[in-house]
Each structure stands twice: as structure tokens, then as C-alpha cells.
């Protein structure tokens, strides 16, 4: 079955890509499989200067999920370009580069540099990192700020810009519409929910940062709901993510309206998850009566037009 999906800047041979921050810059996973198998590669957030991030412990396991408070550790945009994008030259898989910052200026600077690089096919504007004091989520919970940031980044980026939305908001559709109007070419959603776990022995949070971002199967129902609501309200494509662990989850995100599906936390339990999903997807689609990947995208809400005969 043809799994190709064509999105702004991203010609995907299949709809599966790793989620930012769960895949580094690809190097480590290239020891497990050929990165050319992937639909695209989302690389770890880049900031202007290198950052050390938060103190450790930075991760904690929860029931059906995990918390992380990495704090955007990365070597800075310059070294990412010099070392990491250089490493990725050997692959032809599209690269979606995650952009972060503390100020609008920093976002713009990073977006300009990454967007100009020939190995970057699109940017993912991370306005939803819950683990840094400045920037990140504060842009992602205020539609006006988010729109203004999107506009600024769009004005300097040579490639399409996807805005990565935070689920920590009362009205995700309002956010999505605001950034669409500001020129976003696509959305990616969801980032993590803010959570906490306490160490019963010390009485303190397990994460040194106190709070962290909740990811994994726990958050999938929230992600599906948001993708379902947003993909109907906007006309730009959505990259869906949040809790994918099996090929059925991929189909659920497609049905909800995602045009591609990113896999985050599941890479930790199973480093082979992405190629396995890619391999399993055609059979699954077929077993539910779909003859193409496009037949299922958004079927949950455009049901009447497309209801399959015989299923």
C-alpha cells in the first residue's frame, strides 16, 4: 500500500516520524535501524546558545506514562548545524527541526539559522515546553503571544513552519486558530501535560525541577480529543502525537484527523518502534478496509461522506 503523505515542506514516504526530544538528533537510533526508513526525523529542540538544562533527576515513571524535565538541553543552533545536521546529510529522510527560545528574538534567530539550512525541510516551533522558566509554554498558553511569535518566525523562515501546541490550555482550538491565522503551515500536537510525582520517602517531588511533562499512553485520550477538535477547525495539516505505542494507535490518530503521526516516549521502551509501526501499518489499514492512507485521515468527523461499504 502506498503510505506517502505530502505535507508542507515534508514529502513523507510514510506517516511515521519520531517526536522531538525522544530521538536526539538521530545518531543513537541509527545504530538500531536505517533512518531512511522513517517518514521524517524530528530533531531535539535547538536554542540560540547551548543549554545545560535542568538538574537531575529529570525523568520519573508514572502509571502508563512518564514525566520529563530535561529543560531543553542542547548544544545550541550553531553546533547542531555543524555536527548534527552534518551527520544527517547521509540520509534523505526529511528533517523537521524543533525551535525553542526564551525570547522572541532567540526563536527568530534559531529559526533563521535552521530554516536556511539545506538539510532542514520544515521547522517545528516549540511553544509548549513546560520545563523551562522562560519561553516555552508561556508562549503556548496565550494565543496572542503565540500568534505574534508565529508571525515573527514565519517572516524569517525559508521553510514551512509547524507550531507545536501545548495541551495545558482550556481552549486548544482557539490556540490552533490563532497560529493558523498568523501563518503557520501546520500544527503538531500534543506536547506534554504538566504533572508531578512525589517521592514518598523524602516527601519531595522526584524531579529536581518539581514539575515535568507527562507523556506516554496516559495522555493519548487527551491527544486524540485535541487532534479531533483542532483538525476540524483549521485547514492546515496536523501531525498527531501523544502516547502512541502500537499500530492501532497510529490509525486512531489518523482517524482523528492527523496527517502524520509522531512517536515519542515509546522509543524508550522499544527503540525499534518506528520501523515496526511502518511495517505493520499497511496490513492494519487493509484489515479495516482502507485502500489508502488518505481514506482514513479524519474519517472520524467526515464520516458521512466516506463511510466504507461493507465495514
Amino acid at each position: 500500500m502506498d503510505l506517502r503523505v505530502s505535507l508542507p515542506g515534508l514529502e513523507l514516504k510514510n506517516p511515521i516520524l519520531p517526536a522531538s526530544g525522544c530521538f536526539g538528533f538521530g545518531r543513537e537510533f541509527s545504530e538500531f535501524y536505517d533512518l531512511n526508513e522513517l517518514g521524517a526525523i524530528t530533531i531535539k529542540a535547538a536554542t540560540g546558545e547551548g543549554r545545560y538544562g535542568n538538574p537531575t533527576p529529570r525523568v520519573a515513571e508514572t502509571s502508563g506514562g512518564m514525566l520529563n524535565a530535561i529543560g531543553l538541553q542542547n548544544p545550541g543552533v550553531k553546533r547542531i548545524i555543524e555536527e548534527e545536521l552534518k551527520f544527517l546529510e547521509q540520509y534523505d529522510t526529511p528533517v523537521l527541526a524543533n525551535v525553542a527560545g526564551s525570547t522572541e528574538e532567540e526563536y527568530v534567530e534559531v529559526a533563521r539559522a535552521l530554516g536556511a539550512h539545506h538539510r532542514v525541510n520544515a521547522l517545528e516551533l516549540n511553544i509548549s515546553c513546560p520545563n523551562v522558566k522562560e519561553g516555552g509554554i508561556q508562549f503556548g498558553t496565550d494565543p496572542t503571544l503565540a500568534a505574534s511569535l508565529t508571525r515573527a518566525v514565519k517572516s524569517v523562515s525559508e521553510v514551512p513552519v509547524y507550531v507545536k501546541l501545548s495541551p495545558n490550555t482550556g481552549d486548544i482550538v482557539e490556540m490552533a486558530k490563532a497560529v493558523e491565522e498568523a501563518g503557520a503551515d501546520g500544527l503538531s500536537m500534543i506536547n506534554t501535560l504538566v504533572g508531578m510525582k512525589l517521592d514518598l520517602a523524602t516527601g519531595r517531588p522526584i524531579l529536581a525541577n518539581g514539575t515535568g511533562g507527562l507523556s506516554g499512553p496516559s495522555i493519548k485520550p487527551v491527544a486524540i480529543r485535541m487532534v479531533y477538535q483542532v483538525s476540524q477547525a483549521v485547514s492546515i495539516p496536523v501531525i498527531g502525537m501523544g502516547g502512541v505505542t502500537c499500530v492501532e494507535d497510529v490509525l486512531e490518530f489518523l482517524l482523528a484527523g492527523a496527517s502524520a503521526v509522531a512517536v515519542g516516549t515509546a522509543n524508550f521502551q522499544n527503540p525499534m518502534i518506528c520501523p515496526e509501526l511502518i511495517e505493520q501499518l499497511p496490513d492494519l489499514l487493509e484489515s479495516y478496509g482502507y485502500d489508502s492512507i488518505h481514506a482514513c485521515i479524519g474519517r472520524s468527523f467526515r464520516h458521512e461522506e466516506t463511510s466504507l461499504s461493507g465495514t
Partner: protein
Amino acid sequence: MLKKDDMHILQNKMIADNTFEMKLTGRFVNLMKQPGQFLHIKVGDGTSHVLRRPLSIANVDHHIVTVIYKIVGKGTKWLSERKIGETVDVIGPRGRGFPIEEIRNEHIVLIGGGVGVPPLYYLGRKLVQQGNTVTSILGFQGRDGVFYEDAFRQLGETLITTDDGSHGYKGRVTDLIGELDQDVTQYFSCGPKPMLKGVSETFTIPGFISLEERMGCGVGACFACVCETTDPEDSKGYRKICQDGPVFRAGEVVL
């Protein structure tokens, strides 16, 4: 391409208070040559546990790898309930172990505390095989927690300490460092951070230490397990414990 395997459980038995010895075999055992590396083990059924558990390689012998683990939470509890004949999903060997290939005819001291003891056994065996003399100082909470005492004795002089004095010396492993022979040339240590700090501050000779940290990916991709370098001019400024470590030259990273 890298190593992930369903390894077969040959043995899984309690060898001390809440402490289990598990023997595994599988395709990649022959890659597990360097003491100090760890296995990254999937626990639980389905998605109940999204993170793997890192456990040090405690021994490799005749195509069988041993891990020794203490039950501290749900994952290790689950592991302890696995039966012979079942398989566990393992990534590994991971990380950089103790750099001992060149070490010959030295007198090495191994200092371990609690679940830091297991990797030192494989290390000690290798060192002895290479013609070194080994002295081990092993710390436990109490008598019921002691394991592998005889095994270490077969490698060389072995001193045991317990917090409560119920077995061996009462006190900490660092209390015994002063009593070591003067000819000791290097130390290798694994255990809780405060112990490692004590050990590396007490010794004046060079040494290597093995660190623990909560891990996400275990392969170097997520930046969960970093620690800072002591050298502020270091080009990266940090090390990933799962990839650059868990073993570091004493003094290389901030404890």
C-alpha cells in the same frame, strides 16, 4: 545494527535480602566483554511501565550473563517474579565500562556499596585474569543484604562493612581505605553518590567510578541522565551517563 534481544532466563533466585541473581543467555552475550556496562531491561507487560530498567552486568561466563538486582520498586519486583524458561527483552550491552584492557600486574582496589557491588565482580574477575592483584571493600546495610562474599574472596582479599556492624566491620567503606596496602595503584568504585564522593575525596591515587541516574532512553538520545563535567572548559560541559558512562575517571564529573 544494535543489540536488542529476548534473552532466556536460566536462573532467577534470591541470594540475599530482597536481592536476586538472574542468569540470562542470548545472541549478544559475546558482546558483553567490558565490565561496567549495563543491560537495559524492559519490565512489565504491555505499556504499564514505559521505561526500561538499567542493571549492571555482574558476570559473563560461558555465554551466560548474570545480573544481580535488589527489589526497590515495581520493576524489580516484576523481574523477581520471572520464571526460568521465560524471556526478558534486553537492550545491551550499553555504555562505557571500566577501561582495564591495558592493566597488568597492578594492585587494584574495588570499592562497592549495595547494588554497586555487582559490576565489580565481573571487573575483578577480568583484572585477576589479566594478572592483577585485587582487594575488595564491599559495603552493605546489614548481614542479610550481603551477597557474593565468597566469590570476591576467591579473587583476593575482601573486606566487608555493614552499617549496623552485623557482619564484617561496622561502618562505611571509606573507613577502611586508610588501612589499605601502600602498593595499591588504582581504585574502581561503584555505589551511591555520597559513597563515590567520599571514596574519590579520600584517595590520592587515580581511580574510576560508576554512576547511577534515572534514565529515559538508556541509549543517549534523551538527555535524562546527564551530569556536569568538572572542567568548565570541557567542550560539551556534560556527560551522558548511559552513553559516555556509567564509568568515569574520578574527578571528570561533578558528584
